[in-house]
C-alpha cells in the first residue's frame, strides 16, 4: 500500500510525457523500495554499504537492466522510464542507495555501446542480474573533470594491460566486481586515453574506503593499481579513443544526477508538508502559518520548474539529441533546487530535521555531493558557456 500522496502537487499521470507503462514501472519500483529498502536503509547507512542481496532483488525485477539491450538481459526504456525509476528510488531518502545500487548506470553504458561482443557477453548479464557490481573510475587524486590530463597509466605486456596509478571517490569502489576505468595508454592529452574494464579480483588492485559527509551507504573508495594486470580483451572500444566515450558518458551521468536532485527535492517537500500538517505550534498546525506555506510554495515552484526543464531535455535526448549546454545548466538548476528544498525542509522540521534518522537531515548532508560530483557547478558553467559560444 502506498503512502498517502494527496499533497503531491504534480500528478504525473496527467503529463503528456508518461504512459501507462511508465506508471506500471513507477508502481513496481515504489513497491520494491517500500518492501526491500525502506525497512533496512537506516541500518545500511550505518553499515556503510548495501548488501549484495539487494542487487539480486533489483536484478530480479529488471530494475538494473533498464535501458540496456535485451540480448544481454536488459529492458529497453526511454529517459522518462529512467527518471521514474530514479524518482521512486529517491523516496527512500538516501542518495547513497541510488548512487551505489545504480552505479552500473555510469559504469556499464560505455561497455554496452563500445565493448566487444565477448566483453559484453561476459560482463553485462551478471551485472544486470545483480550478481556482479559495476563501477566507473575516472577521478584521480590529482583531478576529476580534467580527464585529458589523467595520470593512471596502462602499458601493453603480451596479452595483458598493466595498470599503475590510482583513482579516488569511486562510487561502489569497495564492492565493485567490474570497474570501467579511464587510463592513459598513449601520449599526453585527450588522444591518449582509453577505457578498461578492470575485474575486482585483478592482481595488483587494492582499495581503501572513504568516510564521507553523506551517501553513507554507498561504499566509496580510493583504488590503487600496482602492476595490475588486465586481459587485453577488457579494453572498451578502440585504444586511445576513450576520451569521447567518457565525455559522452558524462552527459548521461549529469542527467541522472539532475533526476536524483529532483527526486530528493520532492521528498523534502513531501516530508515538510507532512510535518507541517501534523506539528502544532502555539495551538495551531504549522501549515496554517503563512510563512510556512510560502516556503512550501517556493519549494513546489522550484521543483515544478526544474522537473519541466528535465522533461523537456529528456524528450530531446529520446529523439537522439544531446544538448550539452542544457544538460549542464539543468544539472546546476536541479542541484540548486535541491539545496533550496533541503535547507527549507530542515528549517520547517526544526529540531526534528536535525536529528539523525530524519530523511531531510540525510538529504541535507547529501546536497553537496550532487553539486560537486559528475562535474562541479563551476565546471558545468564553463562547459555551458563554451557550448553556447560565449
Amino acid at each position: 500500500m502506498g503512502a498517502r500522496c494527496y499533497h503531491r502537487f504534480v500528478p504525473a499521470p496527467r503529463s503528456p510525457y508518461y504512459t501507462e507503462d511508465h506508471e506500471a514501472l513507477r508502481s513496481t519500483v515504489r513497491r520494491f523500495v517500500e518492501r526491500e529498502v525502506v525497512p533496512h536503509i537506516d541500518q545500511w547507512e550505518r553499515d556503510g554499504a548495501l548488501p549484495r542481496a539487494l542487487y539480486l532483488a533489483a536484478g530480479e525485477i529488471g530494475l538494473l537492466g533498464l535501458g540496456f539491450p535485451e540480448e544481454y538481459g536488459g529492458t529497453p526504456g526511454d529517459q522518462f522510464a529512467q527518471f521514474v525509476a530514479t524518482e521512486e528510488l529517491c523516496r527512500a531518502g538516501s542518495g547513497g542507495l541510488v548512487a551505489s545500487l545504480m552505479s552500473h548506470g555510469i559504469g556499464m553504458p560505455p561497455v554496452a555501446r563500445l565493448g566487444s561482443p565477448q566483453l559484453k557477453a561476459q560482463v553485462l548479464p551478471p551485472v544486470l542480474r545483480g550478481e556482479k557490481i559495476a563501477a566507473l573510475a575516472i577521478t584521480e587524486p590529482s583531478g576529476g573533470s580534467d580527464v585529458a590530463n589523467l595520470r593512471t597509466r596502462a602499458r601493453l605486456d603480451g596479452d595483458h594491460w598493466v595498470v599503475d596509478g590510482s583513482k579516488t571517490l569511486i562510487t561502489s569502489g569497495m564492492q565493485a566486481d567490474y570497474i570501467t576505468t579511464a587510463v592513459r595508454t598513449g601520449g599526453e592529452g585527450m588522444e591518449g586515453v582509453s577505457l578498461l574494464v578492470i575485474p575486482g579480483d585483478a592482481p595488483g588492485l587494492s582499495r581503501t574506503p572513504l568516510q564521507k559527509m553523506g551517501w553513507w551507504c554507498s561504499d566509496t573508495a580510493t583504488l590503487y593499481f600496482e602492476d595490475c594486470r588486465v586481459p587485453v580483451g577488457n579494453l572498451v572500444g578502440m585504444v586511445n579513443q576513450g576520451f569521447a566515450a567518457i565525455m559522452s558518458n558524462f552527459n548521461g551521468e549529469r542527467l541522472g544526477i539532475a533526476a536524483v536532485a529532483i527526486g530528493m527535492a520532492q521528498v523534502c517537500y513531501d516530508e515538510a508538508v507532512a510535518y507541517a500538517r501534523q506539528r502544532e505550534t502555539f495551538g495551531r498546525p504549522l501549515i496554517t502559518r503563512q510563512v510556512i506555506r510560502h516556503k512550501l510554495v517556493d519549494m513546489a515552484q522550484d521543483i515544478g520548474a526544474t522537473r519541466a526543464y528535465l522533461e523537456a531535455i529528456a524528450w530531446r535526448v529520446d529523439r537522439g539529441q544531446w544538448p550539452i549546454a542544457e544538460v549542464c545548466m539543468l544539472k546546476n538548476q536541479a542541484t540548486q533546487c535541491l539545496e533550496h528544498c533541503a535547507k527549507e525542509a530542515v528549517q520547517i522540521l526544526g529540531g526534528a530535521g536535525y536529528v539523525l534518522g530524519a530523511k531531510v537531515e540525510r538529504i541535507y548532508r547529501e546536497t553537496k555531493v550532487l553539486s560537486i560530483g559528475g562535474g562541479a557547478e563551476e565546471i558545468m558553467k564553463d562547459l555551458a558557456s563554451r557550448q553556447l559560444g560565449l
Partner: protein
Amino acid sequence: MKILVTVKRIPDPDESLKFAGNAIDTSSSKWVANAFDEYAVETALRMAEHIGNKDRLAEVIVCSVCPKDKRQHVTQFLAMGADRGVIVDADETAMDSQTVAKLVAEVFRREGCDLLVSGKLSQDSEGNEVAQRAAGLLDLPQASFAATLRWDRGANALTVGREVDDGVETKTIPLPAVVSVDLRIVLPHSVKNGATADDHKYSDGARLASLRGITMAKRKKVDVHTPAALGVTPSSHVAVAGVTAPEKRAAGQIVDSAQTLVNKLITEAKVL
C-alpha cells in the same frame, strides 16, 4: 488446468474521500488494482508455475468487469505473469454483486475453467459476495478466505486452510471449484502445487511486475465481451440509502497502568 482470476479496479484507498451529493466523488480518483485480487493472482501463479522448471501446470486468465478502455489493472496483472485476459466491457460501478457474479460465472463456463480464484473482497465496497455467488450460480464447491492451499493433482482436488474465528478450518474440495483468498495466502509457504518443492520459499507478498513483464503485458491476448454477448442484462437491486464519512477519530490517551486502562474501558469507553 485453467484458472480464472477475478480482478477489479478500485479508487485508490490511500486517497482522501471526496463527496458529491449522496455519493463518493470518484471523478478525479486514481484507480488502482484491488489488493486482494493481487493475492488471488499470486495464488494462481504459484499454482501454475513449476519452480526450477519451465513447464506451466495451468493457464492463468485474469477477468475483469470494467470499461474496456480502463484496463490498466488488467495490464498490471498480465505484467505480473498472468497468461491472458478477459474484459467484460461495462460500467461495473452501476452493477450489484449478483450481476458481476453472473458475468464471471458465464466467462468461467465459456472458457471451460477448472478453478475460480477471487480476492475475498474488494477494498472499496467490501462486499465479500462475488466468489460465493459465482459458486452458487456455477453449482460448484467453494472454500472462502483461504489462507493456505495445496493442490493434489492426482486426486484433482484442493486442500484449503480457512482462517475462521476459532482457528483454522481445513477443507478438501474437488475441482472444479471456487476459492476466495485472504491476505495470508501470500506468505512464503502458503501455496503448494505438488510440483514445486514443498519447502520452496516464495517472497513474502504478491510478486512485483518485472520490467520485462511490463513490456510483455501489452503483447498478451485480451478478449473483450459485452454483457449482452454473455447473455446477462446489467442491473442493480441495491439502492444506496446514504453515504457519509466515518466519524473523525478522537485523540488517544496515554495511561500509566493496565489497571487504569481497564477502568477506562469500563467507565469511559463502556466496552467491557
